[in-house]
């Protein structure tokens, strides 16, 4: 379970987040949604200990992520940022191999190689494994990054907008792969999604942020209501049933 208590992030006088508290139970997919500047990324990077909160604590399975040894945290949770800039020119397989670093500190064992192959297979990257990242399309590259965090084999996987730059087809594939990771591999997936319908279709829970606060947090069914979403996104949202699924319509 991820538990964050009184998390606050401020730059000088500007409070961009919090204080917020909450829990994300183990297992399943949880989506963070909200308008731009709501603090979604800030919250996710603080949970993933890439940013220090101004105050407050985050524990993951009882481990204080900002105090514990970085290596121990890296075996419990993995986090992927939206933009990745690498100095080195690496192949897909090399990138995915980096995911094993917290376990083997660079010396790959047989077990590591098995994990790398599994992660590549899981995201259908077998044929691309010897390509360099700069020879891939945006969608393929995004899959390679996700394969790296899956190879890290942590119980918790945090992803900052994994659908960024993906077209319809690849977005659907990415989401169903993440759903499979939760169902088949038992991962706890926490991700930021912009499209509320993607969040509704593939997640178990939705946490909505607005103005640095948690505006609402509940199961998908409870969240997919016109008054809740209109309030969160500050824009009129209608809910229609499409094939028995609640779908948000907000284009006008």
């Amino acid at each position: 379970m991820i538990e964050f208590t009184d998390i606050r992030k401020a730059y000088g006088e500007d409070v961009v987040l919090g204080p917020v508290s909450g829990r994300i139970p183990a297992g399943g997919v949880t989506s963070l949604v909200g308008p731009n500047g709501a603090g979604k990324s800030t919250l996710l990077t603080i949970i993933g200990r890439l940013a220090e909160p101004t105050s407050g604590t985050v524990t993951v399975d009882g481990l204080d992520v900002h105090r514990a040894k970085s290596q121990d945290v890296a075996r419990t949770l993995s986090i992927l940022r939206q933009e990745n800039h690498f100095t080195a020119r690496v192949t897909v397989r090399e990138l995915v191999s980096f995911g094993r670093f917290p376990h083997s500190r660079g010396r790959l064992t047989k077990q590591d190689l098995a994990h790398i192959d599994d992660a590549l297979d899981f995201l259908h990257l077998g044929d691309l494994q010897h390509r360099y990242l700069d020879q891939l399309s945006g969608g393929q590259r995004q899959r390679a990054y996700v394969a790296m965090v899956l190879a890290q084999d942590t119980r918790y996987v945090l992803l900052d907008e994994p659908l960024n730059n993906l077209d319809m087809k690849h977005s659907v594939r990415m989401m169903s792969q993440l759903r499979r990771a939760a169902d088949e591999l038992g991962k706890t997936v926490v991700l930021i999604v912009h499209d509320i319908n993607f969040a509704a279709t593939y997640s178990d829970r939705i946490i909505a942020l607005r103005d640095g606060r948690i505006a609402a947090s509940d199961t998908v069914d409870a969240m997919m209501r016109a008054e809740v979403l209109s309030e969160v996104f500050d824009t009129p949202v209608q809910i229609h049933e499409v094939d028995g699924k609640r779908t948000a319509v907000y284009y006008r």
Partner: protein
Amino acid sequence: MSEKRLPAAATATAPIRKGLPVAARLAIAGGLAAASALAFLFLFIEGSFEFAFERRLTMLGTMTVVAFAQAVGTVVFQTITHNRILTPSIMGFDSVYILMQTLLVAVFGGGVLAVTDGMPKLITQTLLMVGFTMLLFGWLFSGRKGSIHVLLLVGVVLGLAFRSLSDFLQRLLSPSEYDVLSARLFGRLSSAEPGYLPLAGAVCLIVGVVVWQRRYRLDTLLLGRDAATNLGVAHKRELTVMLLLISLLIAMSTALAGPMTFFGFVTAMLAYQMSGTHRHIVVLPMAFLIGLITLAGGQFVMEHVFYASGMLTVVIEFLGGAIFLAHLLRKGTL
């Protein structure tokens, strides 16, 4: 579209690339380095073998230390700054050294350099240079906005300030004192102080061991701060340790052979091209070997082909600067 699937045994090891495997590349570089060193040591000895051999052995020791310090220092520096064209001299290490020498001459006169040469001076000099880095680093990283780029920028500005101050002081010197000083400020492999070698060698050895232990961690730093942190690497601590080690290496190299700007850049750039990989387990030894080939081979050629034995570092810096410019123009970007 899809690349040919390789047999499992091949994919299990390093990624497959065109050309020679890295072990062969390293072996070739090692062979060339050994050949350069042996040629430099034994060929064309005229007169007393013992005299020439001892002198050449000292010089080879100096070259080894300088090649090691500059090559390893530059590769690691480029890794932590995420930039393949920087060298540690951008941090103003060299200008600290130049300012110290200039101040000594300006205050105590030209004779002081020869009189004060020795262990205490080497240690003081090293401590000052390392202290300068740590001060800069500690100050910048204690603040919330500390970033490696701000650090570099402050390093550049301070380096310029020290250099200008040195220039000003040098104008005030008498011509003979200036002459003594300027001999110190050019690279000088042949007249390096032999007494410095044991300490410099030991420092390089210790730094080498520490860096080698962190070779895989250095690889993760290539992915950037966030990705490295995700993989469980304490980014800030690694940066501090690495900068400390780099300042030690550069202090040793500078004390032995004077300031060098482009030598490290050339060795690192060639090392990346020759290795065909970014992995430090290959690039670090490759850079050292290339540095040694450049120095020992270069000195051999300078002595016996061009009869200009004292000019090697000047030539290397000149060619290095030219390569640097060519590289910049070809890439068209920093």
